[in-house]
């Protein structure tokens, strides 16, 4: 803007001020050099006030980059000359203005002149130097001594910018320096030192005693102008003399001057190989000055000349500690001193032992005092941490160590100074310092860069870690407001690649020690931040946390009252949040049992609707989304599905894994050649199973594996369990009655009730009589070759197929056991079995294994090589599992062979039984009976059923059962024909009813299903479906629609409906699984209801395997 002004029009004072301000705020940087020109003439004007001239000069100096070109420099020097040479005048040429003018001009030259390629530049610099030299060259002159000092400073800056600029006249400078006796002598000294330093570093060959080159007129020396400079030998003798002179006068310097001086002479001293001890003698006492700059200078010297200060480290360290005590100084210098000390110690890293001893010896001086600012306390605590580190490492080297100084004591003592953090609000500074200290003590010397597996191990069993673990548990117990702070402390480790194991470790500690101790009440919410972290961590088994959460939910339900509504809601939502975290991070099978129980309980009893709804959604997600898909969904791909629960696995969560037999060596691997196999392979390779034990939430009583209610049952036992002889506890009833609305029973319902009663009365109460058995057909065979080799038979003869050449086993006993709730499994005996002849090829194995093939061939030999085995289970719960098989047999040569074979897996389909038909039902009305039973159970298993609280006596009259239904749906996107085919093949016995004409026709034609109810008309299904459709929430509809309008889709769907297959499956000992398959052309919707919700998880897999495989 102002660049456009003609230079003839001078600016007023105000205009200058606003221009300067614009520049400083960066508003205008596109000024031209005419501004500079204008400014220079303004400075020379007599009418402008002096302060403005000062600011103008500073302005020019600061924006020299933008304003000045080399062409203006000559004018600037001329202006300077006219100011400097004018006689003193308080209105114009004050000393202050002269000084400012010199300084600004010098600064502008330094900024603008890059090199001396342009002759003009060289000339201007020379004339500036000449002008300055003329000022300097009047030593001891009285009135202008300050100006002379400034001129020296200007020359020094020029010399610094163009090293050795003044080297040729160094002799003159020295003599000036020697003669100057006013306070300006510091500047003369510094100027001379600067030149000496440049001579030494540039290795320029000049004699510093030589004064043959005149001071003025000044010419730029060749080595500054020339592009290259030849390094030459130094005149050591002269330079040493100069140094001796310089070191003679340290007392003339101000602290700042001293700093400058030392920086200049250190390289000289190094280059001249002066004895460092000389410097030390001269300057070491500065460390006792209260000026921080001087102290720091000694430290500088120390770091440059380590050897010279050998043995004085302690003195330095003590002095630094004592600086930190000085209450008179500004706190920041106390902080700095402590930092220097820390830096000083780490600088001694090459002398580890010495440092260690020193730090330990000084331990007592690192203790904070009461009135130390918290920042100082924090740093002193850092020093104590360093000390504990030294102690720790020393301990590992020398066992004998004075007891008074232990790591634990240091830590505890240090912490006293900020111990208020325990009761202060979590944002207090004391808390921040305390956790900072925890961190420093804990992390010790674990540098992030090192590979420190050994150190990690050391840290693992370090006393501090153990102490801190205990402390953190205690703190969380006692001071709940600290929980967020502790969480962020743990987060700090978790976020670090190197130390996340530390964070995990702390979480584990909390899981192990905090969870069992917390009291379950409304205040538990304080710990939720920790719970969330635990839930996230895969390394921690979720059992403990789920238990606590379950207890909390029970507590919330029990204590719900009119004034706790909001609180119940908020805490319930938070509990579900943690559950969600778990589902997102853990393998679902680890969680399934407990989490589903927790969620089921929540969605049944929680007083708040939203919480119930959310719990239902979570439960459905957990139950309905099959394991594999859930894992894909949650992107936990790396986790193997058969991951065993870590550590002390929880007793209820039984993953069957093969165990090694403890039999003698030879028997060890008999499973390699003795095989027990299922005749009908399982559809689903069940890799995990759940054994529902005690369903109580409160106490995990492992004894009551039979699911029988204890004498003190928990509320939810009554729901799924079998009522015991005693009355249901009043406690649980209370819960139910509070929630159960009064209901009216109509005729239809009472008829259904009748059906159900009749049905249940035919189910044996397995606790008092033999229960319902499930049979699994297997076959036993063994391979001759490896058997003979192991047990010392002669190798098979040339005729391998001859029976007498084959080995045999006699009086074989198979024992079964299972950790799944299958009751006691009777053993099975096989009198004799011949070994299989060696096979020719792999394909023959396949043939042998294929029953159909064997039967078709009528190959009698094959059959004689295998014995059929029936495993009889009496399930206490319909759950898949693994049956361990132990074999005991005798070989032909008298060996007793004992060992474990591969286990037999039991699938959910093994549990599928037809419902028991009461004896008074004639054969002809069986289909009708089944159909009615289906309808009744279907109704009863509706989650909202009006049967909910009805109990049904079992056979034997002692136990009663209640129905607690769960519903689920599954959409199978397969064609109707394959649905019908698969159903006919696997589920035909359980079909009780087929409705819908198109469907009935197809099914009737194939003739597999017989003796069932057929209904040609499309019956009440639409009612049911609309009802169900209205009841089912989002997830279901999402599954089968991509269209915008759900209703429309639904209409489309029903229109293509071919009919419905109703399947009733009895699950021993007393449960049911009901499937209503709405078959349509391209997809089938399976509505599932059951009174044993845990089976839903398997059913899901089963259906997928059955129809989608």
């Amino acid at each position, binding site marked *: 803007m102002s660049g456009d002004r003609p230079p003839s029009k001078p600016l007023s004072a105000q205009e200058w001020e606003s221009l300067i301000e614009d520049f*400083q705020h*960066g508003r205008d940087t596109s000024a031209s050099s005419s501004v500079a020109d204008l400014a220079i003439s303004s400075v020379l004007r007599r009418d402008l006030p002096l*302060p403005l001239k000062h600011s103008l000069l*500073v302005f020019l*100096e600061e924006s020299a980059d933008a304003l000045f070109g080399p062409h203006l420099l000559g004018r600037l020097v001329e202006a300077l000359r006219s100011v400097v040479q004018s006689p003193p005048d308080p209105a114009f040429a004050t000393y202050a203005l002269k*000084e400012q003018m010199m300084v600004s001009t010098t600064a*502008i030259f*330094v900024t603008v002149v890059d090199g001396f390629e342009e002759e003009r530049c060289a000339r201007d610099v020379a004339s500036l130097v000449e002008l300055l030299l003329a000022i300097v060259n009047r030593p001891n002159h*009285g*009135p202008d001594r300050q100006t002379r000092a400034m001129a020296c400073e200007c020359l020094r800056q020029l010399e610094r910018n163009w090293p050795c600029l003044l080297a040729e006249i160094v002799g003159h400078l020295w003599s000036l320096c020697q003669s100057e*006796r006013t*306070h300006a002598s510091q500047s003369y000294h510094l100027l001379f030192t600067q030149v000496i330093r440049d001579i030494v570093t540039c290795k320029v060959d000049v004699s510093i005693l030589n004064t043959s080159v005149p001071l003025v007129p000044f010419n730029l020396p060749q080595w500054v102008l020339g592009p290259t400079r030849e390094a030459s030998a130094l005149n050591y003798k002269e330079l040493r003399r100069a140094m001796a002179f310089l070191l003679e006068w340290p007392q*003339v310097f*101000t*602290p*700042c001057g001293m*700093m400058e001086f030392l920086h200049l002479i250190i390289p000289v001293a190094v280059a001249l190989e002066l004895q460092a001890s000389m410097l030390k003698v001269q300057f070491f*006492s500065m460390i006792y000055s*209260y000026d921080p*700059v*001087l102290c720091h200078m000694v430290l500088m010297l120390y*770091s440059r000349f380590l050897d010279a200060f050998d043995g004085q480290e302690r003195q330095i360290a003590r002095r630094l500690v*004592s*600086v930190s005590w*000085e*209450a008179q100084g500004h706190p*920041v210098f106390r902080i*700095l001193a402590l*930092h220097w000390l820390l*830096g000083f110690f780490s*600088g001694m890293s090459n002398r580890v032992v010495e440092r260690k001893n020193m730090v330990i010896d000084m331990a*007592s001086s690192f*203790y904070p*005092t*009461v*009135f*130390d*600012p*918290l920042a100082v306390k*924090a740093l002193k605590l850092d020093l104590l*941490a360093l000390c504990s580190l030294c102690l720790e490492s020393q301990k590992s080297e020398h066992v004998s160590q004075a007891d008074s100084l232990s790591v634990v004591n240091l830590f505890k*003592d240090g912490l006293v*100074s900020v*111990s*208020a953090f325990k009761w*202060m609000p*979590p*944002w*207090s*500074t*004391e808390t*921040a310092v305390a956790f*900072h200290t925890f961190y420093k003590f804990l*992390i010790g*010397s674990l*540098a992030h860069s090192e590979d420190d597996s050994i150190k990690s191990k050391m840290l693992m069993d370090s006393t501090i870690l153990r102490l801190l673990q205990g402390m953190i548990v205690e703190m969380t117990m006692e001071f709940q407001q600290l929980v*967020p702070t502790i969480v962020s402390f743990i*987060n700090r*480790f978790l976020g670090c690649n190197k130390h996340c194991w530390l964070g995990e470790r702390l979480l584990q500690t909390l899981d192990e020690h905090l969870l069992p101790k917390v009291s379950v009440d409304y*205040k538990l919410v304080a710990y939720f931040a920790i719970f969330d972290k635990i839930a996230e961590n895969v390394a921690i088994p979720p059992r403990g946390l789920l238990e606590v959460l379950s207890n909390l939910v029970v507590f919330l339900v029990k204590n719900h009252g009119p004034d706790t509504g909001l609180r119940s809601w908020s805490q319930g939502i938070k509990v579900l949040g943690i559950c969600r975290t778990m589902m997102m991070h853990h393998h679902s099978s680890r969680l399934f049992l407990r989490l589903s129980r927790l969620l089921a309980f929540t969605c049944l009893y929680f007083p708040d609707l939203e919480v119930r709804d959310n719990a239902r959604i979570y439960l459905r997600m957990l139950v309905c989304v099959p394991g594999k898909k859930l894992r894909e969904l949650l992107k936990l791909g790396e986790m193997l599905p058969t991951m065993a629960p870590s550590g002390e696995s929880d007793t209820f969560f039984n993953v069957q894994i093969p165990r090694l037999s403890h039999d003698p060596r030879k028997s060890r691997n008999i499973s390699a050649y003795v095989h027990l196999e299922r005749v009908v392979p399982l559809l689903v390779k069940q890799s995990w199973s759940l054994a529902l034990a005690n369903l109580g939430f409160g106490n995990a009583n492992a004894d009551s594996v039979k699911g029988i209610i204890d004498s003190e049952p928990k509320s939810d036992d009554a729901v799924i369990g079998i009522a015991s002889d005693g009355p249901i506890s009043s406690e649980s009833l209370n819960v139910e009655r509070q929630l159960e609305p009064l209901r009216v029973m109509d005729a239809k319902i009472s008829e259904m009730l009748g059906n159900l009663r009749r049905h249940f009365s035919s189910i044996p109460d397995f606790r008092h009589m033999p229960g319902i058995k499930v049979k699994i057909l297997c076959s036993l065979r063994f391979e001759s070759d490896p058997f003979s080799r192991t047990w010392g038979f002669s190798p098979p003869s040339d005729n391998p197929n001859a029976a007498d050449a084959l080995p045999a086993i006699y009086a074989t006993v198979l024992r079964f056991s299972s950790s799944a709730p299958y009751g006691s499994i009777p053993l099975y005996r096989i009198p004799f079995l011949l070994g299989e002849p060696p096979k020719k090829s792999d394909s023959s194995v396949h043939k042998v294994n294929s029953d159909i093939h064997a039967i078709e061939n009528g190959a009698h030999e094959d059959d004689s090589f295998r014995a059929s085995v029936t495993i009889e289970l009496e399930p206490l719960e319909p759950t898949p599992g693994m049956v361990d098989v132990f074999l005991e047999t005798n070989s032909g040569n008298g060996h007793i062979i004992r060992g474990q074979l591969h286990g037999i897996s039991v699938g959910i389909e093994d549990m599928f039984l037809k419902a028991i038909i009461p004896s008074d039902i004639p054969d002809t009305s069986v289909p009708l009976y089944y159909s009615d039973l289906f309808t009744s159970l279907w109704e009863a298993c509706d989650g909202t059923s009006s049967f909910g609280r009805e109990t049904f006596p079992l056979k034997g009259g002692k136990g009663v059962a209640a129905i607690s239904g769960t519903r689920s749906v599954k959409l199978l996107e397969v064609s109707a024909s394959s649905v019908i085919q698969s159903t006919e093949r696997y589920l035909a016995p359980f079909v009780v009813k087929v409705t819908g004409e198109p469907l009935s026709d197809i099914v009737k034609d194939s003739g597999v299903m017989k003796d069932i109810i057929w209904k040609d008309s499309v019956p009440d299904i639409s009612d049911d479906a609309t009802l169900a459709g209205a009841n089912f929430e989002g997830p279901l509809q999402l599954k089968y629609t991509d269209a915008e309008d759900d209703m429309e889709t639904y209409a489309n769907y029903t229109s293509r409906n071919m009919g419905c297959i109703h399947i009733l499956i009895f699950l021993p000992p007393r449960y049911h699984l009901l499937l209503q398959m709405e078959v349509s052309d391209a997809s089938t919707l399976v509505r599932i209801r059951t009174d044993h919700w845990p089976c839903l998880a398997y059913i899901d897999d089963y259906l997928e395997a059955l129809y989608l495989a």
Partner: protein
Amino acid sequence: MPTGCGIRALWILNSHDAVVFSRRFPVVEKQWRVACKSENKCNGGSVDSVALPYLPSDSELASSFAERKKREGSVRGFGIRVSQSAEGSDSWVDDPVTRHVISIYINKEEGQNYLLWPLILHMKSQFCILVLPLVELGHLDSYKELCKRSDCGSAVGGVDGSLSSLLLDLPSVTGAFMVAHAIGEIISGDMAEPEVIVNASPSVGGLLDSLTGSIGISSRAKPVAAPVASSTPSNTSVGAVSSDAMKIGSRPLDKDALRTFISSSMPFGTPLDLNASNIFTIKLNGFSSADLPPADVKQPAWKPYLYKGKQKILFTIHETVAAALYDRDEIPDSISVSGQVNCRAELEGLPDVSLPLIGLNSNRIESLSFHPSAQVPEQGADKQSVMFSPPLGNFVLMRYQASCGLGPPIKGFYQLSMVSEDEGAFLFKLSLMEGYKAPLTMEFCTLTMPFPRRRIVAVDGTPSVGTISTTEHSVEWKILVSGRGLVGKSIEATFPGTVKFAPWQTQRFPYTKSFFGSMAEEDSDADTEPTNNMVNVEEYLMEKMTKDLPPVDLEEPFCWQAYNYAKVSFRIAGASLSGISIDPKSVSIYPSVKAPVEFSIQVTAGDYILWNTLGRCPSIAMPR
């Protein structure tokens, strides 16, 4: 390699984060650019080549500074890594010094930003002073690494790259602190010289007076009794919330003085002399041809003028006693003395003075430090001389820390017990000057009970000696008033009474709310818990009061507001409590002149605290 201490630029901001003064030093900046350029040449041109050699404009700096303030929670910041700390911020480094040596990100237009470090932050009256010293590029990179490290932090005693090693390696940071403090004194106007007491008048002025007193330009406002010890504790009695909260309504910035100071003390950005009174005297007075340099010795840079006139030499030992008295078995009382020997030597020429000190008993004196002009004696001996060449005006010859040689001048206990939510019963039982003999004189003694968070309605009770006065937030008990001092004898003083407060009001700090609000809300579940089973009034009250305590600055020793205490202030004359003394007769001057030596001693109370025996108190563990 940068030599010495160079300042690239400095800025002064007011309480609205606007730059009110700035100064850039192009000569130092040139060194920085050259370093950047050569670094770039080595690296083959790095990304920062454009941004690095660039100083922000005032408005850029102001907005970046405001941004940092937002990021770090306050002007200074957290200093320690807390949950709010973000990667790349200063508190991420997890070190209290980052409240003083800060970094800011300057945003360039292209969306790039670059780090400016180290900025020395010094706060004085309502101004923030930022000083940017020259460092090496490597140092900047090290710091960048520290504040952007993605792991959990650095271990103590790390070999290199730690902040401690950086600071040790950077004298320019220390120098920049000195610059910042010198500038702070100028803009706040309290260029107080250490106090030296003479018997004739209560105090004598500084350097300027000794030169110009006669011509009447000593109009400069000068505090009569300059605070000798650190001034931080003095604002504790009325519960200063935080020193970050700046006082409003202060003097405007004297830019001319500032400009003068800067152009003389550090003309090119390299500080040469930071003694403001010397600089201003030179500016005002100049030199005349009558000012002759000394004949055979060099006049030091720190003594631009030589004294002429009647010769005398004055010494004052000034001690400040800090005490934490607990009256508990499990916590030992702690008493410490921080003292200094102030001096004013009106001597002609450049003489050396030898001052014999008595009572330098090494097991009582914990640290000794000296004026740069002093030759340091061997440490440890009981009696020794300090040799020094005195500058003009008042100066601190020596500083020391010591334990108290005599017993505590005021002993006793303070008990305060809340009988209800708004009423407390208290009891003081003190004994003053127990075991103290003449010439020790207690000139006055006042005790203050501050209640910064409660409004006092009434105080009931009569002390055995002295008078009571009440303000809204404190009770003051004047035990001894000036003029009626206690000479060489001890007295007992008791004060039982009750104090009534206005009902407790929950205080909400905007600071707290914005930063910790989420946590406070978490508590709401517990809040509604009925507290009917409350056993102890005091505990309940304590809980209530601590709940919304604001965090204190790291520069405070602890959260004063969290405790009940009484603070005693007094002055003792006659002898020092540390046992240090001077024998005026054996002071010798070389070359020998006859000059009278005056000597005085003054002991005042610093943080002299009686903790409520029945309440919480901050304490420390003693080394075993």
